[in-house]
């Protein structure tokens, strides 16, 4: 059965909320593994992994620096350089947070890479949600691939005019600087033209809207979505109750 885009969104959102609320290392690892498995099964792992790495590596590093190197509550000192102390508790906390963030990022990326954007727009439109909201949501999901495609065209054009990108991070950084300005300028220009085209096609009209694309839905999926949303709300409630009870 085809998965309705709102069911996919509800599942990803619910998993992200529950993982964040639970703050449990085994659960975070399990959710991360499930997200990776789903991405491999959907054939989107090749595109998703670089995006996940771009988000998670700097984030993981910053967590390690913030919590691993300075964790006042830490008692088991593994190493010390002046005021900087590496403690077992700090590393453990950084690992837990990194696993938690990784699970959320991976599940949301797996969802966004496998979600059919046109289905999502049609589903939102069919529920009376204004076209502008659906468009912004859909554009956000398609933004990265669109920027990557444009950057590729700019690189090809510059290479045809003699730009040689050598191996090595410094050469690539220098080439990126040359490509960044035309990339940003063309994206701004493109946004202006597209906005005018959308306006001319009645995008901002306030009257009733219809949908050409029909996205199949079922009572089972509607029930599942309700369960997923309730599970997310329940996880937050339990977490808050736990905090209140502990204080």
């Amino acid at each position: 059965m085809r998965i309705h885009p709102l069911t996919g969104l509800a599942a990803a959102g619910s998993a992200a909320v529950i993982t964040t609320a639970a703050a449990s290392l085994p659960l975070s690892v399990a959710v991360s593994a499930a997200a990776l498995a789903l991405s491999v099964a959907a054939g989107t792992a090749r595109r998703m992994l670089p995006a996940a790495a771009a988000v998670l590596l700097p984030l993981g590093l910053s967590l390690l620096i913030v919590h691993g190197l300075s964790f006042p509550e830490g008692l088991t000192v593994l190493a010390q350089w002046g005021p900087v102390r590496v403690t077992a508790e700090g590393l453990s906390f950084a690992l837990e947070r990194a696993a938690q963030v990784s699970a959320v990022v991976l599940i949301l990326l797996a969802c966004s890479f496998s979600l059919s954007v046109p289905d999502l727009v049609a589903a939102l439109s069919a529920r009376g949600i204004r076209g502008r909201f659906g468009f912004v949501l859909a554009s956000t999901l398609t933004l990265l691939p669109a920027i990557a495609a444009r950057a590729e065209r700019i690189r090809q054009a510059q290479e045809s005019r003699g730009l040689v990108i050598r191996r090595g991070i410094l050469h690539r950084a220098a080439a990126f600087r040359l490509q960044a300005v035309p990339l940003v300028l063309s994206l701004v220009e493109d946004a202006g033209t597209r906005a005018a085209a959308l306006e001319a096609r009645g995008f901002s009209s306030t009257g009733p809207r219809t949908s050409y694309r029909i996205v199949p839905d079922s009572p089972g999926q509607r029930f599942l979505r309700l369960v997923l949303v309730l599970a997310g709300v329940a996880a937050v409630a339990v977490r808050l109750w736990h905090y209140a009870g502990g204080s």
Partner: protein
Amino acid sequence: MHHLLRPVLAAGIRSFAYHDGDAPVLSGVDLALAPGTLTTVLGASGSGKTTLGRLLAGWLSPGAGGVLAGFLELAGTRLEFDGSAADPRIDPAQWGRQVGFVPQDASAILSTVKATVAEELAFGLENAGMSPADMRATVEHTAGLLGLTALLERDPAWLSGGQLRRWPSAAPSSPVRRCLSWTSRLPRSMPPASAKWRCWCAASPGTEPPSSS
């Protein structure tokens, strides 16, 4: 005989300047485009042809997009502008139902959120609230007129540059479409492509542009 007909699209531009520009981009422009005519405007690069096309098509709104002193007239309705806050506002959607525009980068007209050519064609119809049955009939009719029938299930992102330039004449699929203006070269199926800016006005609403000969 055309000069005897009332123009479907006209402009009297004493001056038009962008908000961030020092000098007017356009000044002393008078145009009256009669039904059943094809008008060509020639000029050097940067002389304002695209700006003129965008103004006539409602893509560049006086007030928000720049300061216009003069008038724009569409299908007998004349809007006077003097650059003040009391100037009338153009509704791009209503204007776009009657005037189409092909930008230099034709791919910029795609909504980017539609999966097929048919859905992209239906975008303007969805926004107008047309019923699904009427929408399907209109999409098929328009695609047939423009030779896009075989491409209806294709991803619009994979359309060629030539196919995309035919798009704006079809995209809103408006039965009241009167004019189509463009600033770049067009494929052979469209009117002759040597000029820099052209505007074709139909003899009757909804008529498609003539083929080149």
